[in-house]
């Protein structure tokens, strides 16, 4: 199908973009890579009256470890740029982020889709949203009222719903510290489809020993969630299998066209164990 008519505005700077969004209020949508939005507009699931194109704001296309030790990724950085980032730009201990990119759609989606777009769109199975929650990322947002940093744990509210105001745009995502023993894995019926369940872990280790860790799941709720029950098993020195079992017991995943709740629990058991093993083998 074809999208409904809209007016197209090309932002020249961040201030101009947010001022325009404030003026147009909820009639406008921000477009960057458009890999979710254009599909929704073609289906007329979305019919914004105005599009504010921020793709020209090249200052939002950057990636690198900054003085605070965190990995800063500009909102307009594409998945493909992250996927192909040289090791010295990515920084030691952030390989989990680069390696997660291969799960996002297919190459021609990753060449256009952006980090900020994925996080602002907030699909419940999106890899960036899961990484942000797992690794305590901070989302830097800008509006006419100024700049703020929003912790990932307070950013996602539910299906496609975030803490961003209608006149606010994401500038960058900051991953505050390296995660050398972390991994993300997922299952979909076909490669490149939306995940039915995705799992990610970030293990705290002492040599060969696991001292604890963080466990997060996508596709089991309206947004990515941490699973404290599974993290408690890791902190108590339990096995990866027990950790996975605890996660499957703790969540109540939905039944839908992707699979039943029980099927998702089955996937959780396998995927968390697999993610733990991958994380340890780094």
């Amino acid at each position, binding site marked *: 199908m074809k999208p409904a008519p809209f007016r197209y505005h090309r932002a020249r700077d961040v201030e101009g973009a947010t001022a325009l969004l404030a003026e147009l209020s909820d009639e406008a949508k921000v477009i960057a890579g458009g890999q979710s939005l254009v599909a929704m507009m073609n289906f007329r699931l979305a019919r914004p009256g105005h599009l504010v194109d921020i793709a020209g704001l090249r200052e939002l296309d950057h990636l690198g470890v900054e003085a605070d030790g965190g990995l800063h990724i500009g909102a307009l950085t594409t998945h493909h740029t992250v996927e192909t980032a040289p090791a010295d730009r990515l920084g030691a201990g952030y390989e989990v982020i680069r390696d997660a990119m291969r799960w996002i759609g297919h190459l*021609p989606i990753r060449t256009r889709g952006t980090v900020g777009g994925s996080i602002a769109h907030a699909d419940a199975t999106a890899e960036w949203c899961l990484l942000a929650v797992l690794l305590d990322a901070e989302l830097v947002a800008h509006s006419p009222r100024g700049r703020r940093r929003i912790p990932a744990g307070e950013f996602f509210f539910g299906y496609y719903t975030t803490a961003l105001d209608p006149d606010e745009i994401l500038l960058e995502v900051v991953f505050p510290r390296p995660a050398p023993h972390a991994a993300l894995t997922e299952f979909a019926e076909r490669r490149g489809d939306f995940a039915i369940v995705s799992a990610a872990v970030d293990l705290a280790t002492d040599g060969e020993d696991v001292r604890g860790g963080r466990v997060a799941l996508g596709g089991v709720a309206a947004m990515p969630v941490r699973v404290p029950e599974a993290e408690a098993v890791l902190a108590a020195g339990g096995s990866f299998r027990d950790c996975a079992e605890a996660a499957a017991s703790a969540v109540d995943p939905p039944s839908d066209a992707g699979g039943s709740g029980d099927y998702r629990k089955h996937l959780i058991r396998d995927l968390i164990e697999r993610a733990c093993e991958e994380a340890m083998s780094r």
Partner: protein
Amino acid sequence: MNDTTGPGDDVQLITLDVNGTSHEVITAPRRTLVDVLRHDLRLTGTHVGCEHGICGACTVLVDGLPVRACLMFAAQAEGARITTVESLADPATGELGDLQRAFTAHHGLQCGFCTPGFLMLAQGFLAERPEATKEDIREVVAANLCRCTGYQTIVEAIDACATARRSQRATGAEEESCN
């Protein structure tokens, strides 16, 4: 108003660089890149299938990288280098390019509807990853849908083209070092 616009549409003038030629187009912002290529520029080699980014029939290169031309408004492509399937053959003689010849030799198509998309996907991919293995190629062609071939012959065509390009480069490099 022309066939590119409807009631309620604004129109705007955009300049697109397609296969090295600059085109000025007056069109509505809601026109996707694939529609402008086909309807306004009459470059009908790029096909359009699902219009929501699943099938890959509309794949073109934007600044050398494969993208879905149905998931991009033409206005977003202003300032970028766009390359379509029309660029693959020799413009003077019409002789097919090496990738196209490999598809012919390996029966990498039957009905041909998806073929322009596969060609541009492979063209962009091999430019960035000339050393790609058959396994890498198998993974990347999962981006596009083909309902005739079962993919085996497409993978073989792309792999054969990549292999030939590598050996050509090696020969070229050798000749260079001899001189």
